[in-house]
């Protein structure tokens, strides 16, 4: 009896959320159609001037099983156009990492759409921790905006901390590092070296589950975690 009632409560909440979603999305769809043509590099540039501060590293946490690489590519391109130079994309199963080629293609397409004639001045480098790309040649020097996108999966979470712990203990045993020096500021350097990214200031979480699913536990210390409903508005802010 109680269990049934609880289930009912959950259904009601789900229904309410669905309605809220409909209400929020409806006007959005209409506006989106009219605005779509307007999301260009120049409009985004104007928006970025309105913002007091633009984060340097944005994390994109995909916490659902089904996602569209096209939307993901759009979010990445908008972020780059906004002046964000580091973007990390995480999903627990490494699905995105495996599909990096498709994502790259989607990014190129989205770049052509959103940035149009400016697209040559943006350089988006995609790489993942398991296969780091070689530094590109000098041609990229002429490009105005450079951004790196790193694809992450579960191995970059707890596992990375363990690897660094092993590395440190090796150095301590061989006398290259003193055990008294194992303090957050020093250990943080190892993490910076392993990823070459600053800590994320913002983490956009997509999906219904409110959980980090092992996204960069060391680096997430001061990150603003922005969930689904906010994410819509946030991208909205990116767009408008």
């Amino acid at each position, binding site marked *: 009896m*109680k269990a049934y009632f609880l289930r009912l409560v*959950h259904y009601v909440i789900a229904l309410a959320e669905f309605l809220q979603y409909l209400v929020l999305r409806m006007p959005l769809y209409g506006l989106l159609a009219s605005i779509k043509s307007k999301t260009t590099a120049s409009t985004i540039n104007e928006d970025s001037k309105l913002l007091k501060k633009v984060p340097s590293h944005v994390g994109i946490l995909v916490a659902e099983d089904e996602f569209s690489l096209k939307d993901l590519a759009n979010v990445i391109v908008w972020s780059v156009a906004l002046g964000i130079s580091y973007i990390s994309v995480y999903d627990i199963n490494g699905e995105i990492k495996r599909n990096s080629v498709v994502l790259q293609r989607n990014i190129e397409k989205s770049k052509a759409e959103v940035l149009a004639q400016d697209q040559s001045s943006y350089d988006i480098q995609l790489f993942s921790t398991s296969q780091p790309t070689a530094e590109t040649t000098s041609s990229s020097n002429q490009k105005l905006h450079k951004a790196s996108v790193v694809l992450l999966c579960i191995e970059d979470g707890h596992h990375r*901390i363990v690897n660094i*712990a092993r590395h440190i*203990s*090796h150095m301590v*045993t061989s006398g290259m590092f003193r055990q008294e020096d194992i303090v957050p500021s020093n250990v943080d350097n190892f993490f910076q070296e392993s990823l070459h990214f600053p800590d994320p200031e913002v983490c956009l979480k997509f999906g219904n589950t409110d959980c980090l699913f092992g996204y960069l536990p060391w680096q997430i210390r001061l990150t603003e*975690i922005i969930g689904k409903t906010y994410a819509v508005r946030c991208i909205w802010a990116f767009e408008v």
Partner: protein
Amino acid sequence: MTWFPERRRPTWLQRLCEAILKSGPVPQHVAIIMDGNRRFAVKNSLEKCEGHVKGFDKLAETLEWCLDLGITEVTVYAFSIENFKRSPDEVNGLMELSRQKFAKLLEERNLIQEQEVCVRIIGDISLLPRDLQELLAEAVNISANNKRAVLNVCFAYTARDDMCNAMRELSIGVKDGLIRESDISENMLEKCLYTSHSRSVDLLIRTSGEVRLSDFLLWESAYSCLAFVKVLWPEFSVWHLYAAILHYQRNYNKIQIARQNLMIERERLQRESDHLCMLEEEAEACSKLETPPSSKQSVAAVNSNITQNKNAQALVQQYAKARKEREKEFLASVYKKRSDFITSLLPKHPVMMTKPPATLISS
């Protein structure tokens, strides 16, 4: 106000909600960032310290709600290492408040035993004033054997500091030869954290509408349900708690699946590492016996040898057993070091009185 306020009878509505919520999954371990005391003080034009006092009262109340719901472990963020950077006035105020509250807790020691609450301190308490350290140590000591519920108080804590501490313990272990570098795994690091004796965190609540973790349980909350509540901590009510639990239940299935996968993955990694280490060990043993061949050849030789003998499985099991022995011994030494530290802070001459002079302490 005391740690164990007079029980207010819950209204019939509360009892009904409680009963309904309990028919679904209820988190075993809830972690709380009690944020918003200072904003509450400003909003109600109180002194900052007043805000913190109100915050403590809310904590005592919340613990009771949690127990009623069957939440047996609660972890609260009382004082971060970063908080030492606040104005000296406020830091002193907070220290004084903690002193009073823990003295009060010791005064109510019979109530702790009655309620069977185990108090643990999470963090590097050696950073605190000595007298406060002693109070904390005594509170930990008298409640250590209580089983019904656990209250973890994060004091002079940051998650990064905790992880560094674990790394230091592991490095010392490797250096002293208690464990090997290859023994360092997610499980081992987890067992070296201050929270090693705790269950995994199921639900993390942060009040005041901030959406950051602020260096709180970073490792432990990687697979917890997060609930950011838009209310200042002193205004937190039982309804907010119920809502957070509903939120947890909505996320329960997906998180549970992720956790199970994580466990399977960890076991797989461990087996792989055991296998690899066993091969290396055998290769070493072989190269000691037969002098000339280079190590690569000998690994290959051992490889074929082992597959021929079909002994590999047994050897891996043997290696795993030895590794577990090593780990057990190492962890025992780490835990002993910690409990020795607590013991060293206890009063040298135990007071024989069953009840401490209340007037002295409460003043």
